[in-house]
């Protein structure tokens, strides 16, 4: 059993790593990069939103802070985004402390709406930072051609591998947490905070800690994203869509599971890209209508996420075999 699993993992990893060497179509690779990126954000969100059930709809705050930190360092000081990406993560962690202090006193919908407000306030503040951070106009990144040391790559393969590494990192962290005491504590807090505290779970602290990790990872995604689309402005960096997408992929795939956000992204991103390319040139509104219908169907039909179907099937097959 174990060897087969190992072989399967090694095989899957090989395929994933070798993919850009085989797939030369830039659009296909772009979809792959988007899948990896949003799966990464989803996994980061899921640590907090899925395991600890703290429904954040403001993760764009960290995405944006990461994006702006590395871009400011790059353009103002010429510091490589490889350093900027870590700096952005640290800034996001520091900012998550006061946000967490404020928002974690709230539960359920209060928490969700407070996090929306925080992300919005940050966006509005960056709109006001006209001299320091280019205000609403935003800025494009300097075109350095193929400069891997500055996180700019000639083709798409470089971006693909970077996104793959990020996703692998987030999955490894989640895997470790899930199997440790912290995973148990997170789920317990998510299920029933009072009952968890009754058996000694320091709920405020565990929430703060997982928020730190989640914020750090989300900020990494922000830097990657800006490097990839070459442009930053407050509306992009602090977009409500990022917050929603992070939660949606997890919910569609299955919250509080290791692979849920990945599965959710694999289903949603290409779907939306395909809808976009097949219906996008027609009359406006069709593809988002279809997208919304798909979402509603999934939520009504499988509120615990689609991963359940696969694990159920897997168990059924395993039992039979």
């Amino acid at each position: 059993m174990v060897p087969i699993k190992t072989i399967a993992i090694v095989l899957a990893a090989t395929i994933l790593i070798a993919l850009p060497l085989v797939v030369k179509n830039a659009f296909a690779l772009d979809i792959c990069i988007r899948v990896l990126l949003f799966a990464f954000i989803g996994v980061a969100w899921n640590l907090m939103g899925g395991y600890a059930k703290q429904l954040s709809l403001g993760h764009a705050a960290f995405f944006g802070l990461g994006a702006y930190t590395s871009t400011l360092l790059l353009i103002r000081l010429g510091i490589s985004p490889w350093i900027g990406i870590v700096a952005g993560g640290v800034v996001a962690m520091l900012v998550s402390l006061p946000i967490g202090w404020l928002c974690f006193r709230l539960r359920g919908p209060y928490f969700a709406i407070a996090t929306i407000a925080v992300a919005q306030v940050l966006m509005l503040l960056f709109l006001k930072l006209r001299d320091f951070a280019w205000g609403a106009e935003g800025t494009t990144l300097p075109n350095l051609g193929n400069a891997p040391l500055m996180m700019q790559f000639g083709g798409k393969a470089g971006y693909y591998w970077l996104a793959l590494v990020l996703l692998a990192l987030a999955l490894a962290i989640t895997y470790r947490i899930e199997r440790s005491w912290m995973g148990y504590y997170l789920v317990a807090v998510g299920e029933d905070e009072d009952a968890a505290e009754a058996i000694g779970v320091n709920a405020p602290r565990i929430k703060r800690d997982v928020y730190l990790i989640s914020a750090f990872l989300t900020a990494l995604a922000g830097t990657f994203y800006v490097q990839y689309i070459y442009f930053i402005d407050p509306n992009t960096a602090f977009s409500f869509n990022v917050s929603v997408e992070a939660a949606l992929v997890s919910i569609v795939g299955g919250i509080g599971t290791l692979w849920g956000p990945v599965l959710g992204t694999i289903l949603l991103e290409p779907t939306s890209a395909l809808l976009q390319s097949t219906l996008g040139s027609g009359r406006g509104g069709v593809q988002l209508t279809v997208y919304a219908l798909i979402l509603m169907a999934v939520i009504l039909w499988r509120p615990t996420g689609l991963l359940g179907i696969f694990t159920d099937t897997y168990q059924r097959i395993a039992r039979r075999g």
Partner: protein
Amino acid sequence: MAEALVVRGVSKRFGGLRAVADFSFSVNEGETVALIGPNGAGKTTSFNLITGYYRPDAGSITAFGRELVGLPPYEICTLGLARTFQVARPFGQMTVLANVMTGAFLRDRRPHIARERAREAIRFVGLADKENALAADLTTIDERRLEMARALATEPKLLLLDEVMAGLNPSEIDQAVGLVGQLAQRGLTIVIVEHVMRAIMAVARHIVVLDHGQKIAEGTPRTVVGNPEVIRAYLGTGYAHPHPHATD
């Protein structure tokens, strides 16, 4: 004998409602004390005050010599006080084993140790065959067992049980009484809130009676049951004979 828990002059108001007023009692180490009283007497509120879910407006609560007022619930648990809830609150999406392991992690963060200790607690409450069941699928009595196992896994010195027998049938009550008795034999200090008088008589040597947030009587089971104040509180004035069993 050393005092495990001392509640002194504790009061709590909710808006206009006086939930607990100037309440004092104490529990010696290794003793089992029952807290009884009609619905709304302030029993569960007292538990919530002791375990840090509410902060008293006045008074002090000490356990094993430490002041508890102002401490959050998880720190109180770390000091060795574990509780169950009136309505069991299992982590529904976790298995029985995972539920109890979560409690065991308080004393040891290594999963294999926690698993071992959790299994011990599960065996003790008689849930061993349902170790891998989802907590949400348990029956009422099994939920209570689970909650007790989870509390025990935190290795408490003082256990506060909130109506663990409500809604159980007579044979289940006997089982539960047996469990509590075993725990007491192990030297655990127990405070139990209960309506089922038969059970109280069987486990508690000392009873504290609350009514409208105030302590109206205290003593051995026999003296308390005969106390006219207590009878009036339970049945209203005019009733001559004590008939506590009907008060559930």
